[in-house]
């Protein structure tokens, strides 16, 4: 018996040691790619990405980089930065599509900037797992379109058991929707003019609140107001206002509001952006464009074009792509496929890849961490067995912060 017990203990120690060694070894990885798209310069033929402790240690041609002994080696035809979905509701919106897993819009009020995405995100949602399998390592997710001011968004990595494991930016933007989809015929706002009137009134309220909080004597200071606190952050340009607007007049309204209150504006959806290119340029607003394959048959996206991404890009407008919000099947789109369609409709390969990597990172304000393969950045990588955009290619590996999170062939 004592002998058996001893063996058991010894065995456990060995097991622990082995797993410790494993993680140690796994944390240090050399990724070899026949083509490595760094998005920080021209693609590298026969490139190597060295990963140490979750960060990119070196990137360059295989002729100049020796993979140290003990590093695990991964090989792929094509290597790219982990992909970024610049706007989604995945994690708040679940794949069951039943009331209990749809937390992207709260309809009790049209003005709820106090709703935090971190309080609703389910990192174990199957759709998170699904999109990760296609190389998507970063998600800008949160409260969705469909309510005038639906709440906050956040940025996460597509991994982790808890929201804290996943978080990159807990409070990224405040989400606003203009136009048909956020009209509330009975409760209001029931018209476009009313939507803008309500928004302006709320922003003015926040301006006055901020100034009173700053200048009023202690006994006259207004009490903390979570909604206005958030809008003050928007007014202070700490975070952008994310305005979903498909029709050209709604895009112009968003620009007008941003100008009046000197806000940081990020345009979202923007199906008719090609009609108002000059105004978007002048406002210096980046565009998180609707999914290229969004349903075009009906409603406010009826005039969308597969070529919008390339038309905006040619005019120097910063463009990222999104999976958006889907109320039915497919419950989420996959930005890898959306970028592929953009690449087939006027964007160059690098530009198209940029819409789901470095451009998206810049618009989201996280380009110091993700979006390209550069020394010091997070080791988020997607590995492919061919042209990433070809339908018949596969994602063969996905890394987040140096951890292999998927080796499934997808």
């Amino acid at each position, binding site marked *: 018996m004592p002998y058996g017990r001893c063996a058991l203990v010894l065995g456990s120690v060995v097991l622990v040691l082995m797993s410790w060694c494993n993680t140690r070894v796994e944390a240090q990885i050399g990724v070899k790619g026949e083509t490595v798209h760094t998005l920080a310069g021209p693609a590298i033929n026969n490139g190597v990405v060295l990963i140490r402790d979750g960060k990119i240690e070196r990137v360059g041609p295989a002729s100049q980089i020796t993979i140290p002994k003990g590093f695990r080696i991964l090989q792929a035809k094509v290597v790219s930065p982990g992909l970024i979905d610049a706007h989604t509701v995945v994690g708040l919106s679940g794949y069951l599509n039943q009331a209990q897993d749809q937390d992207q819009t709260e309809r009790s009020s049209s003005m709820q900037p106090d709703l935090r995405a971190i309080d609703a995100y389910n990192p174990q949602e199957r*759709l998170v797992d*699904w999109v990760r399998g296609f190389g998507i390592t970063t998600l800008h997710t949160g409260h969705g379109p469909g309510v005038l001011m639906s709440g906050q968004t956040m940025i996460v990595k597509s991994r982790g058991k808890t929201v804290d494991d996943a978080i990159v930016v807990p409070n990224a933007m405040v989400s606003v929707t203009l136009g048909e989809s956020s009209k509330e015929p009975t409760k209001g706002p029931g018209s476009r003019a009313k939507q803008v009137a309500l928004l302006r009134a709320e922003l003015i309220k926040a301006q006055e609140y901020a100034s009173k909080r700053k200048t009023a004597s202690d006994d006259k200071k207004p009490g903390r107001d979570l909604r206005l606190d958030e809008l003050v952050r928007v007014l202070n340009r700490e975070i952008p206002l994310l305005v979903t607007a498909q029709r050209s007049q709604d895009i112009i309204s968003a620009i007008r509001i941003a100008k009046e209150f000197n806000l940081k504006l990020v345009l979202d959806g923007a199906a008719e952006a090609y009609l108002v290119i000059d105004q978007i340029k002048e406002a210096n607003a980046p565009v998180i464009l609707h999914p290229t394959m969004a*349903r075009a*048959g009906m409603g406010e996206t009826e*005039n969308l*074009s597969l*070529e919008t991404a390339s038309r905006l890009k040619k005019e120097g407008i910063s463009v990222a792509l999104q999976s958006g919000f889907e109320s039915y099947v497919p*419950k989420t789109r996959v930005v890898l496929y959306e970028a592929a369609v953009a690449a*087939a409709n006027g964007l160059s390969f690098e530009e198209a890849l940029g819409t789901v990597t470095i451009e998206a990172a810049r618009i989201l304000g996280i380009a110091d961490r993700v979006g390209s393969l550069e020394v010091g950045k997070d080791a988020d990588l997607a590995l492919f067995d061919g042209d990433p955009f070809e*339908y018949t290619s596969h994602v063969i590996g996905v890394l987040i912060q140096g951890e292999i999170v998927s080796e499934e062939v997808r």
Partner: protein
Amino acid sequence: MKTSFRVLACWFWLAGFGFAQEAPQAFLGGRIIPIAGPEIPEGTLVVHNGRITAVGPMRSTPIPDGTERHDARGKILIPGLVDSHSHIGSVEGADSTAPIQPDARVLDSINVRDAGIQKAQAGGITTANIMPGSGHLLSGQTLYLKLRDGNVIDDLLIRNREGVIAGGMKMANGTNSRRADPFPGTRAKSAALVREQYIKAQEYRDKVQRANGDPEKLPPRDLRMEALVEVLEGKRVVHHHTHRHDDILTVIRLSKEFGFRVVLHHVSDGWKVANEIAAAKVPCSIIVIDSPGGKLEALDLSGKTGAILDKAGVLVGFHTDDGITDSRLFLRSAALAVRNGMSREKALYGLTMANAIMLDLQDRVGSLEVGKDADFVVLSGDPLSVYTKVLETWVEGKKVFDRSDPKDLLYAVGGYGASRDQMMHMDDYDEEAR
């Protein structure tokens, strides 16, 4: 000025008058994927009077005198795509008064100017099964249409030799057709309601047979029963929306009981019961979607469904279910099936011939063979590549989509007005009026 325009318009009118005056047309030097046989690297396709008159290698395929020649070098020719399940044309079927409405015909609802039809042409689709929705156990009679440029619905119909309009019958089970009264509330009730109606139809059929033409004995005409009798007699194939594995088996059970011919549509769970489907010899028309879920029945939807069903020996076709997926991207469905393990040959077959068989149109469409309708698509590259563009779509020897024409290009890529009903331009009107 006015007179010369009239003369010109008159000439157009004559040119469009029947096939007799048309010269044969040859497409030379392109890679031809005939589906009916191996790919031809440098081929010739000759069409005349709406039919294919020759297809083969360029070197050995003669071209008749007076043929109009098209340079197809560097391009790829495939048969016109057949979509076995689509909702283009602003289609309507049954209303909400009853769960089973076999008398409702989509024929009486379609808007041929719907932009969806132009977009389907832009996607290379030349034949489509236009269906009513899935919110009923039986939502009406479907139509198999040729996507010709038409002015009225009659211009798009397909008629068999007896003049009967081609179409099927749309049925559904599972959750979509479970609704408030008078709709069923459970699966068992759904099946019971369907069985009840088919038994009625059997009795109606028997009464008609026994009457043997005697007006005294004939039952009063019943449009609903007449349509169901067509189903019982195999003249009208049932196109059955079904997702969950047990619902799929229910469809097979009912089709055996009443002997109706059926095609299973969507079959999200089909991979779980592939062998059972194969044993029943029932074809499947599947949808390819970017992610699972969105509804409880589609939680286990898999990209591998096509490959698994095919391996089990099931005839597999694809459909757009437009607006669920975009007709302009129909080729993508086959490409994603290949990504998930289906062979290239079977995937291309699934866009064409497999669907033609499911619609009983295999003698007319689905492959490039002599004698078949001259329905084909000219592509800029490989049919499974994302970078490939549909350049031209031809139906019965007439070009219905041309990417180099700005009006057609609008439908292909979208833009302002691309989803509006097809405009009736005054110049078109003048041309047709003369």
